[in-house]
């Protein structure tokens, strides 16, 4: 059994070499190997396609198990029929031998598969991120599809018609997937499974939360309320016994931050929160508090008739917040310079990610010198990413990692409550780095009240 599997894999790899998108010579061989290239024109169109694909080092494709294209991050699915055909062939040939294709590695290129019957997600990456992380990105994309359709509907559609073209139902939501992929590549919250909170004095936050809570607690069937400022959460309230999972909050954040029209009108939309309940829709009332306060209030309910009740509640929340100065305090917090790491005054420390494990919240201070360019910041993020995946590798518990790299010295530090990833100047010693942990932990004790949400009340 194992033997056959090996040969299968060999053929797969030789197949995959034909489409390796980093090698111009090899990609040309695809056009030559094409069974019946009807004309030289078609041959050159493949070349153009592969040239386009090569311009980007991270691709994500979604297709149905029947091989119908659903989504591609770059380019047009219609021009990639043969590419999608190859993907489905790779998946089914392994399936035939009662196995599941997880990933293919060839040179720099890694191809990761996530089979979520009735759809398959494929990630192709030439950057250094771990396979698990690519798989997690694919899961996010999958969750986004579920959030627009629900799992129940997705299964039903393909149960009735295996050949269904899902793009019909996905139309208009592709841009959300595009933005979500960018989010997974740039936001530390994705790496840390956590959310970032808008920094503000805890007394202000409590006042805001209380104002929302007072209105929300009166409404039957309201399940969650969130107040969001750009990428940060200001406040969360929830119904007794229910809680919001981080990955669902990420989907909500992505929806809000990708949709300009929420700023001009109240929106009422069904949304499925896959981790909360993948089988059905919740209904979301989405609106910005006021023209002069760009914080977005999301109220989630299970009752699709609740729009006017929620609209009314929102109006009252805004009125109250105007009276008790909350709107002003939110605005202050939005424009305030985020707290800088320099204030902690720790020698040699350049940057860090701090995760409060119990709350699933993190703090990522603004990048300062030498991380002045996007490229350098991305590079640091990928160093973090590799540390995070080493720290959280399933089946083992690491407490400390100390790494001296060419450009920086990294320290990862985990306790029961905190995960800490620190970037130091290159020549910082182990002792110096561990001392920094102590110093930072003390400093955080003073600051964390404003950096994290400690009070998520229920109604």
């Amino acid at each position, binding site marked *: 059994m194992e033997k056959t599997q090996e040969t299968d894999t060999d053929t797969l790899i030789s197949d995959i070499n034909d489409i390796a998108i980093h090698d111009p010579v090899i990609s040309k061989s695809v056009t030559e190997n094409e069974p019946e290239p009807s004309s030289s024109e078609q041959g050159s169109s493949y070349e153009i396609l592969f040239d386009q694909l090569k311009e980007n080092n991270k691709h994500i494709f979604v297709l149905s198990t029947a091989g119908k294209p659903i989504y591609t991050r770059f380019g047009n699915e219609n021009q990639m029929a043969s590419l999608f055909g190859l993907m489905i062939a790779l998946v089914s040939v392994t399936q035939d031998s009662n196995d599941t294709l997880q990933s293919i590695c060839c040179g720099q290129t890694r191809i990761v598969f996530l089979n979520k019957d009735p759809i398959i997600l494929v990630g192709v990456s030439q950057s250094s991120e771990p396979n698990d992380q690519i798989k997690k990105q694919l899961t996010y994309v999958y969750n986004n599809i579920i959030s627009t359709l629900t799992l129940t509907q997705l299964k039903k559609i393909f149960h009735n018609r295996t050949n269904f073209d899902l793009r*019909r*139902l996905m*139309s*208009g939501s592709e841009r959300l997937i595009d933005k979500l992929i960018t989010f997974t590549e740039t936001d530390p919250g994705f790496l840390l499974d956590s959310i970032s909170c808008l920094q503000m004095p805890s007394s202000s936050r409590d006042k805001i939360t209380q104002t929302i809570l007072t209105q929300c607690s009166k409404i039957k069937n309201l399940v969650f309320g969130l107040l969001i400022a750009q990428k940060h959460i200001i406040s969360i309230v929830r119904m007794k016994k229910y809680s919001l999972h981080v990955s669902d909050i990420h989907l909500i954040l992505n929806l809000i931050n990708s949709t300009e*029209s929420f700023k001009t*009108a*109240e929106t*009422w*939309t069904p949304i499925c929160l896959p981790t909360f309940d993948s089988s059905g829709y919740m209904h979301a009332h989405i609106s910005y508090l006021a023209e002069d306060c760009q914080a977005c209030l999301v109220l989630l309910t299970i009752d699709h*008739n609740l729009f006017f009740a929620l609209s009314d509640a929102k109006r009252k929340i805004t009125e109250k917040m105007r009276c008790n100065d909350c709107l002003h305090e939110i605005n202050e917090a939005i424009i305030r310079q985020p707290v800088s790491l320099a204030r902690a005054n720790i020698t040699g420390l350049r940057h860090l990610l701090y995760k409060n494990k119990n709350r699933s919240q993190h703090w990522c201070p603004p990048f300062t010198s030498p991380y002045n360019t996007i490229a350098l910041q991305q590079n640091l993020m990928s160093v973090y990413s590799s540390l995070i995946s080493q720290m959280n590798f399933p089946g083992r518990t690491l407490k400390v990692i100390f790494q001296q790299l060419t450009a920086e010295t990294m320290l990862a530090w985990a306790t029961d409550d905190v995960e800490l990833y620190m970037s130091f100047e290159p020549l910082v010693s182990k002792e110096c780095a561990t001392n920094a942990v102590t110093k930072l932990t003390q400093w955080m004790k003073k600051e964390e009240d404003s950096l994290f949400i400690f009070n998520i009340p229920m109604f």
Partner: protein
Amino acid sequence: MKRLTAKLVFMGSQGVGKSSIITRYIKGDFKKECEATIGASFMYAKVTLRDYQITLKVWDTAGQERFRSLVPMYYRNSDAVAIIFDVSDRDSFNQVKNWINEVRKNTDTPVVYYVVGNKTDLIDTRVIMYEEAEEFANSVNARYWETSVYSNTGIQDLFTNIGRNLIEIVESSKPPVHLKLEIDPEEAPNNERINNSKIQCCTN
């Protein structure tokens, strides 16, 4: 001043310009790239006509197929329905009939129907001509109107006309009970047709 509050719903295929028409009317601006509406948006549009101050509660529904099953939730109890199509896209025109039939089947109150051909600035690619659309609208007892958000024609008049038709209904001998007409007390001491309606939301 008489105050009238009515519910207006915009429907139609995706990309025909529903949101753009409303944004043009309310905000006065136009974006060439308009992102697809998610679910439905709710806005207030004001129309002042004769001695009437009309507040239209406008539902702007998403045209995407996946939101289709939700549309009844929005047009229920509506007073006016505007079904938009793109004059350069026959499919979107063909859809109009289905929308009208659907609303007819599911409402029992008198509704002002407007069929609106948008994007009339696309002269070269236009496939639905005025005559064809108007004939069709007449055949389904709807009014036909043309707009171009791009060149800002017909937009103001669309809302004014809808307002005018709503006034006609309110002033008719049997105005529907749910159409809310309020008359400023000092001006209407003995008016019998005041609907005694505080702000009452359509929660049913």
